[in-house]
């Protein structure tokens, strides 16, 4: 059980990226009537940005 929680917290920045940043990006774009590039949906665009950002944070240990 402890190992499961360790893994969850290890991957938390990635989960945060897709669980929170992605919908936040999509809903902010909707609010300001912005369209995602390359014919992507706003949530698809949010998932790419949020997922990639979270993943690099897991690897580097820094959000920026």
């Amino acid at each position, binding site marked *: 059980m402890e190992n499961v929680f360790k893994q969850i917290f290890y991957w938390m920045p990635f*989960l945060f990226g897709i*669980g*929170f940043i992605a919908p936040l990006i999509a809903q902010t774009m909707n609010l300001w009537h912005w369209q995602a590039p390359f014919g992507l949906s706003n949530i698809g665009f949010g998932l790419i940005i949020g997922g990639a950002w979270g993943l690099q944070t897991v690897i580097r240990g820094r959000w920026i």
Partner: protein
Amino acid sequence: MLEDPKLDHGAIKAPVEPALYEPALDTGGAPALPLGRSDGLDRHTRRDLRKEEIEIARQFHGGRMWPYAVAAFGCFALWVSFFPLAIMGYLNLPLACLISCVIATGGYVTSHEAMHSNIARKGEKLRWLNEAVGAVSTIPIVFPFSMARIMHLEHHYHCNDPLKDPDYTDEAPNWWMAIYKTWYNRQPGVDGSIHHYKRILSEMGTPEAKRALKETMLLQLFFMAVLFTMSWNGYAIEAALLWWLPRHVGLSYIRFYLSWAPHHPREGKTGRYENTNLFKSKLGHVMSMGMQYHIIHHMYPGIPNHRTKHAYYAMRHILEARGVDVSPLPAVKGN
């Protein structure tokens, strides 16, 4: 007959190795062990000052503590009510965000009183209230009371010790670096802030420390679950403005004003009268949460936050005699 000094009987003089202690070479440099700054007082004077100090401090202990409980529960209830109100569209989000930032930051003050059992001590009738105030106050910053209390008491026991003071990682050379560090220390791969606390608790290994670690993990998971659920149901902006952003603002504000400002510079300053500074806050007494007089809190943690200013002015002459730099604050109490 004059001797040729270059020859000196053929012997070349080597540099003289001094004895263990050579008074002539003693330039009064730094001691081998870092010693506290001397106040130049003899032990009788110190004892008399200490007795007077204790007498004065006694007058400021206790007092009305119910406003802390009212503030803690009132603010927590208001903050929780923001979530359904925001979902129903009845809330001015920017204003609610601002109020949430104030609640998240101010919650530490009420929790802090509970950490020192200033609302009620163990065995007293209202002990449950003390624990409840502590528990609700720091939920907005996702910092469980159990962890906050252990870490804060460790900070008091080992103030400014680079290895034992859990808040030592907040040290920075100037105010803008201190603000940057409040954010930097929260990065997932940096051993600062709550990550540092978690490591210390793991090393402590006591039942209380294990409980604090468990509660921290549960509160963090609850925070994430709320953010994710709200976000994927169309309320990501509400979640960000009511909890995520206020938490970060609150944590940075608390780290800056309650940790960096009153203890900078930390290095080598571990003595009772030197581990905390008096400083003049540009934002004033209330906005700095009374931290200008934080030295009183470190000397007497039982004096509640709202009375530290009055206690300071009552014992200012003693602090000055003990070598505390009292110049940053006016000699006479203002309103």
